[in-house]
């Protein structure tokens, strides 16, 4: 019973971080209608960049994180400029392959620069004990941080003209143009927001994980599953499904083993897809 309670709480904490992870991928899909296949790899790259400035150059961790987030935002803009923009009217499969190629580029780049070793920034994050519940403060920190960032994103999308324009482009690009919105600019802002978010997620991962060149792939898949389960492009759906995945992963791991937990998650995912292929909150439109 205590074990289950522990698993549930840790699942909720995990869900918050996953919600932030999936948000950027979801936003990019919703606005630009493109699947950023290398999203998890960008998180990996962000982790390395923070590691480089903090552990290699010896800068304070907060400054390293800020630099990491800015650089990742620029990588987002670069992705838009060099890959997405030229392929906007290309067939879907070409877009998908081009973005998939980013996986190889980013992973090999990391391998070339940092090698295959596991690297991390040692941090002293205590375990908090409340009665019989044990919470790792690194998870709690990531959870609170992720929710705070999601809150800021919500405000940005709902109360600024730029945020509103992003949502308008996602819903009807032609009419958004008639309102004077420049979709090219909105795409850049979206990719930069998504890029910055990979840096933010990386920052929250720093106290939890060590990084290696293939660190990103499982997060790409995780983010993709969350986005599809929630309904592609539906931000609220993604938020809900992140918590479902987080809790199921955590509770199933306690009841069985971590390996079986992954299977349970995927079985639930496939079953939902069979019943509701458009996802939990999806509208069932192919775009």
């Amino acid at each position, binding site marked *: 019973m205590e074990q289950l309670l522990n698993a549930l709480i840790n699942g909720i904490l995990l869900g918050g971080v996953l919600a932030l992870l999936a948000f950027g991928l979801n936003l990019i899909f919703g606005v630009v209608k493109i699947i950023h296949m290398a999203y998890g790899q960008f998180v990996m790259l962000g982790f390395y960049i923070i590691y480089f400035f903090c552990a290699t150059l010896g800068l304070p961790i907060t400054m390293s994180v800020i630099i990491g987030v800015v650089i990742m935002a620029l990588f987002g803009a670069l992705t838009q400029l060099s890959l997405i923009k030229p392929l906007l009217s290309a067939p879907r499969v070409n877009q998908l392959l081009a973005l998939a190629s980013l996986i190889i580029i980013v992973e090999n780049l990391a391998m070339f620069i940092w090698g295959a070793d596991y690297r991390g920034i040692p941090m002293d994050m205590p375990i908090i004990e409340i009665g019989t519940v044990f919470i790792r403060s690194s998870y709690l920190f990531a959870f609170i941080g992720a929710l705070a960032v999601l809150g800021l994103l919500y405000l940005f999308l709902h109360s600024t003209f730029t945020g509103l324009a992003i949502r308008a482009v996602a819903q*009807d690009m032609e009419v958004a143009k008639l309102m004077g*919105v420049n979709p090219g600019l909105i795409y850049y802002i979206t990719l930069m927001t998504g890029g910055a978010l990979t840096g933010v997620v990386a920052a929250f991962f720093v106290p939890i994980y060590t990084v290696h060149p293939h660190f990103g792939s499982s997060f790409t898949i995780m983010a993709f599953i969350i986005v599809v389960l929630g309904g592609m492009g539906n931000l609220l759906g993604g938020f809900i499904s992140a918590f479902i995945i987080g809790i199921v992963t955590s509770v199933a791991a306690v009841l069985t083993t971590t390996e079986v937990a992954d299977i349970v998650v995927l079985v639930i995912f496939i079953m939902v897809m069979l019943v509701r292929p458009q996802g939990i909150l999806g509208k069932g439109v192919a775009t």
Partner: protein
Amino acid sequence: MLKVENVTAFYGEFQALSNITLEVKAGQTTIVLGPNGAGKTTLLKSICGLEKIRSGAVYFENQRIDTMNTHKIAELGIALVPEGGRLFPNLSVYENLKIGAYLHKARKNFQETIEEIYSLFPILKERAKQIAGSMSGGERQMLAVARSLMSKPKILILDEPSAGLAPKIILHMFSFVEKIKKSGYSILLVEQNAMKALQVADYAYLFESGKIVFEGGQEDFDKNEYIKKAYLGL
């Protein structure tokens, strides 16, 4: 104010406009009549840069606009209300109005303009928080017009505002058009509902198969029995 000169445009392989020349004068309501497929919507899309024209030119206040991007054309003060309104369905009524004021000039006066719009369309104030997609057809059309007015355009272009609306709502719609006209807007209105549209028109063009087959004021249409019978069903 707005001049379309010798414009030819294609819709896919199909020639939708051939050698169209027309003009909207400042402060006037100009209408384009014609059956489905006459090229009316293509004309409006060409003006707003949503379709590229094959030959000819479009001028707005003596500036050539047919080579410009849609959002740049919007900045000049041209606002199109697309057929069916095309609201952003998942945004609230208020948010739809707010995005209407996206242009830099319009943002500064946003609070003022929205109060004006609310006094013109009080129901939009009551429904401010409602999701646009959940409104009735007539309300949506009203909101679509209001959204375009939020940018304080110099010319308002309406694509079939009466399409799909109940007869009673159509009357409402046209009384709105009249109201907007009285407050000094230049209007270009495309309609299938010839009788209603002619009542608000200063000048009218009749399209068929991408060509202008007749043009003139209300009286000219009134006098021409053949045009009335053959095209307008009057």
